[in-house]
């Protein structure tokens, strides 16, 4: 019986030691992260909407650092985007998905649906702030970099162009490919509308034979398809970009615009070490 008592005591001690070690390991890892709470990644993004029937859907990358009982994203009740004029655009709908989660932090993608009728035709609205409201009605603003939403009116040109495929995402923001087919009469391509702060681009057209032409002034015949390639340059080091460009063209002396149907994401920050470093940079702001 004494041997059994000793055994029980040994296992009790082992339990306490292992628990202590686990909590110590947790504390060490937690100390690598900055102050707990919500961190929104800074983006340089552009969304165009040529149709009035589609509401803008904006993607934000959010990090939830679980430390010190800080409020997580899910503790907030409302989310809104604030434009540079100070107008708050409340979300019509929000969806949140986990990209990664453990006991130390979560990486989330927040998709905010805005109201298309809040945006005047042929104007660009810029957002630099997202506003969260907690259960007590207290508001807190977070910097999100720069997001441009451009509303375009293309009611007169329905289903003139069809987009056969486009770059949906990449790690590095080097290029963007778009396949376009003209469904109606001949048109002349004019430019790609893409308003990014630190990024410049050069647009080229590749015809079916692989010949390369400048985009501006390219004549796209009825029923023909081309590939448009954008080559990016400039500050491509920002790790988060979402783009939904718009193709501007002329037909019969009138200018029209057609937005690509979906947004593309250029996300280069994946590694845990890079994420911790990025969070510290964001915390220092």
């Amino acid at each position: 019986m004494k041997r059994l008592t000793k055994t029980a005591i040994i296992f009790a001690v082992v339990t306490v030691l292992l628990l202590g070690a686990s909590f110590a390991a947790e504390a060490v890892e937690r100390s690598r992260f900055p102050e707990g709470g919500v961190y929104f990644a800074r983006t340089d993004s552009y969304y165009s909407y040529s149709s009035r029937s589609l509401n803008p859907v904006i993607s934000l990358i959010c990090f939830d650092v679980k430390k010190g009982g800080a409020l997580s994203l899910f503790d907030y009740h409302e989310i809104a985007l604030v434009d540079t004029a100070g107008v708050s655009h409340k979300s019509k709908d929000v969806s949140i998905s986990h990209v990664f989660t453990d006991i130390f932090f979560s990486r989330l993608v927040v998709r905010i649906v805005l109201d298309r009728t809040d945006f005047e035709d042929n104007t660009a609205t810029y957002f630099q702030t997202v506003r969260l409201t907690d259960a007590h009605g207290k508001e807190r603003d977070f910097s999100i970099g720069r997001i441009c939403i451009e509303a375009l009116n293309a009611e007169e040109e329905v289903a003139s162009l069809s987009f056969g495929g486009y770059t949906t995402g990449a790690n590095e923001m080097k290029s963007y490919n778009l396949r376009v087919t003209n469904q109606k009469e001949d048109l002349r391509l004019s430019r790609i509308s893409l308003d990014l702060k630190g990024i410049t681009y050069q647009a080229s057209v590749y015809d079916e034979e692989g010949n390369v032409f400048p985009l501006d002034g390219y004549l796209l015949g009825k029923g023909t398809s081309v590939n448009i390639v954008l080559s990016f340059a400039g500050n491509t080091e920002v790790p988060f970009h979402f783009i939904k460009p718009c193709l501007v063209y002329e037909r019969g002396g009138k200018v029209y615009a057609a937005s690509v149907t979906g947004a593309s994401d250029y996300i280069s920050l994946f590694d845990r070490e890079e994420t911790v470093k990025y969070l510290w940079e964001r915390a220092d702001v």
Partner: protein
Amino acid sequence: MSSLTVKNERQEGLRFLFCGIMILLAFWQAAAKRLWAQSGTAVILLAVLAPLVCLYLPVALYPVFNAKKQKYFPRLAAVYGVNKTEGKSVLLAVCIGVFGWIAAVYLYEGIICLYQYFSNSLILSVGATTEKWWLTALMGLCYGALPAAATELFYRGNACFKGQSTAELLLAFIMPITLCFELNAIGINVIVGVLSVAALIKTRSVIPSVVIASSFRLLNIFPGSMLIPPFSFRLATSIETSLVFGLRALAIGAAAIGATVICFMLMKKGEAEGAGNKERSDFFWHAVLIAFYLVLWAVLTAL
């Protein structure tokens, strides 16, 4: 108490027992399904603690409510078809089975989580258990053989089990359920359960049941089998968390082994001691056992 009363109480008790088992089965199944979908701590607590509460508390509280024992314990003993002393032994054996199961599962989880940490690879995050035969074999050993061996030890070591069909059924039910817990298919649970019970009744030994249940577990070696990564793996979504949850899983395992040892001590004392200060001594060790139980609860909550 007349034989008719005892018989009625036994029938009533058996109904109560099987209702309880069905509830526990439901808990387990719900927990398994929720865990599959990344559930929270509450479900884990329900899955692990509900059976412990149902099975252990009657024994643990028995000496505490000593004054009422004459009223309640005969009924409890009748449920298991044994007398007072034997009834305690049966319940302690069941506790040993449950604690043994917890110890084996969490030791296995702890080892694998720490393996993940030190090898710097999330080997279990992509269902790699089905591709690594040694992992599955280790799981089969920990989930199948170790708890069953603990049960077998007490089955053979206690005379009270001999010829007690209700106790056999109880053991036979507990063990296959625990062995097959991670197989997220009630059909397989039922098949293995029925086969195990049949083997147990026929041979009056737990060993054939162990072979049957462990064989099903080892079937997971083959790709595409229905293996559900257990608790800690679901939580250890990064290398860093593998270390934390590995150590906690080992802590749970160590606490469960301690609880098993205390159960063993209680059983030995029950057999060896007569009157005198037995109940005071029992109370002390039951208190220690409850302390272990609380440690388990605390760790599971922390998870």
